[in-house]
């Protein structure tokens, strides 16, 4: 079972290593991890998707992470009503104008953007939930995908209460 976890931590060198090191040491699999600035300059938000057997296992790792000195708050977003997004960029090889037209079509159906076009390639950008991303990649697999970069999902809870006040 996959869980989306939001971690608020002091914006200090090494904090990401601390968090990821602890998770791997306790034998959990990190599916994705990303970090970024927040509304507070001193605080980093780390978004992690971990694979755990069940909620008890997950709570163990949450308890361990809560012990890290730099960690301010940890919330299991999966158990809340939330909005979940990921961004992907896909570079596809284009050998004919027919293929280019196909790909532009697919992109528009998915409401994706063509963000770069070259003589032999296009780059498509799509933001959405993971199944939507998977569907797009599945379609593009009919052509030659040169490379893919994705951010990993980030999530915000619905409603007025931010994670830091939970």
């Amino acid at each position, binding site marked *: 079972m996959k869980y989306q976890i939001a971690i608020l931590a002091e914006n200090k*060198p*090494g904090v990401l*290593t*601390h968090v990821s*090191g*602890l998770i791997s*040491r306790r034998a959990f699999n990190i599916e994705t991890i990303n970090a970024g600035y927040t509304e507070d300059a001193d605080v980093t938000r780390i978004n992690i998707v971990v694979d755990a057997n069940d909620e*008890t296992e997950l*709570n*163990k790792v949450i*308890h*361990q992470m*809560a*012990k890290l*000195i730099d960690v301010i708050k940890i919330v299991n977003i999966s158990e809340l009503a939330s909005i979940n997004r990921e961004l992907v960029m896909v570079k596809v090889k284009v050998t004919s104008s027919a293929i280019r037209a196909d790909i532009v079509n697919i992109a528009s159906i998915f409401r994706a953007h063509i963000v770069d076009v070259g003589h032999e390639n296009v780059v498509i950008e799509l933001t959405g939930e993971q199944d939507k991303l998977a569907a797009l990649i599945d379609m593009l697999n009919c052509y030659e995908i040169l490379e893919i970069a994705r951010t990993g999902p980030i999530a915000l809870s619905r409603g007025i209460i931010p994670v830091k006040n939970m």
Partner: protein
Amino acid sequence: MEGSAAIIKCLKENNVDTVFGYPGGMILPLFDALGRDESIKFILSTHEQSAAHAADGYARASGLPGVCIATSGPGATNLVTGIATAFMDSVPMIIITGQVDSDLLGKDSFQETDIFGITMPITKYSFRLRKADELVVVLRKAFELANAGRKGPVLVDIPKNLFFCDVPYPKYNLQKRETDRPDADFLICAAEAQKKILQSHKPIIIAGGGVIFGQASDELRKFAEKYNLPVVVTLMGIGSFPADHELYMGFAGLHGRKSANCAVAEADLVIAIGSRFGDRQTGNITEYVNDKHFIHIDIDPAEIDKNVHSSIGLAGDIKIILALLMQQKAVDDLAKWWNRLNELRKEDDFEYTGAYDVPNVMHHISQTINRGDYAVVTDVGQHQMWAAQHIERFKPRTWFTSGGLGTMGFGLPAAVGIQIYYKHDRRVIHIAGDGGIKMTGSEYYTIAALNLPIISVIINNESLGMIRQLQKVFYGTRYFSSEFKYRMNYAEYVNSFGIDTYDVHSMDEFVEALSNAISENRPKAIIVNIDKEFVEPMTKMDCGINTFIKF
């Protein structure tokens, strides 16, 4: 103020009077400052690992953070085993390492290692100092962290140039942190726990090292007495409960007393206090949990539900929690359970024959030091288990051993730190095997140089007994790398440091040697040359803790 002087001032501010360490290029400015200061005692070890173990020993004995300093690169990496040992046993320590100059960082400079990164998983926190003006703030924070909640080691890595910088020394606002009052939820849990205790028919207490670090021995005794509860201790919990108390069932675990292990296995309610249900305590977790109920009391909330699913978890100060749990009126209907426990005790009565074997040697040590002011420090291996089984301890901080990490070589350097803390009030009996002595035996130099009155008992069976035992049980008696065919003379070895030694080959000789050693207040070593044996009992860890291997 110069950085190094500020560090010394900050150490004093935190009541540090002893520092352990080993010099090297990048930490020399701090050594220079220490040398010019007369109020902090510096203990020079023979190896950084030993300096860490000594600071660890000092902390275990005093309850205050042990301070240890070393240089960058090899100095810092040599500390690692010592830091990990302290981390696993929740011992408060401050480790200061020198680092290459700021402008040389990240260039693979001479003696540069990323000790901050290396120690990340084995410290409560590591600091990598970047700016001089943070020095004092960081050091204060390090002391605060090492001491707060579940204690542990904290490392501060300082580039050499910062020792020379002019640093601000802000005023110290000592904020006495108020202990959190139990909230409503907590009180409900506590009430439920009391109900469980009163309802159970076969309750038992497992007392761990947390009772000692939480200074809750008195509360533990009162709590057990109030509800007439039997008490077993873990390896780290020895000394938390008086061994001659009628409620005491002994040491439980892989090599624990049979009666203690059976009592835990048969219990319907386990009250674990300051113990983390380590695998050497529980064996196969499914067998262990069985149909039991659990009350888990620990200062670290992350321990609750980590290894055993507690029915009730109470995270917080053990002293306060035990006081909370004593508010109910006791109903004593445990007669049947106590009959069973006494039956177990009788079946398990160890008969001391006086024969020349390690259990009898340990028993003699126990009888000799009995209630006198002595502290027992062990190394790791067979002798450690025999000591845990046969040496009785009555007070906290009179038993020291490496529990979680099981660090061979821990004993001798730790004994140095402990003896330095106890000065002449409490004499240290150090027990080790011949294997461990070859690891950190160089500390006899420190012992001799400082004339520390440690009595060192070396159980010399010319083998790595515990490894040999594992090979006997699990590897078809194929002994490999565990028997020392090449003989060495331990008496001459220790004697070469200028320490009186006794080379012992019989029980009579041992009795005489120990009494001689005790009569003179200076370093002594007794080499007990003895046959290879196996430590019994040994539980079958994959079955229940009440099943035992036959030798």
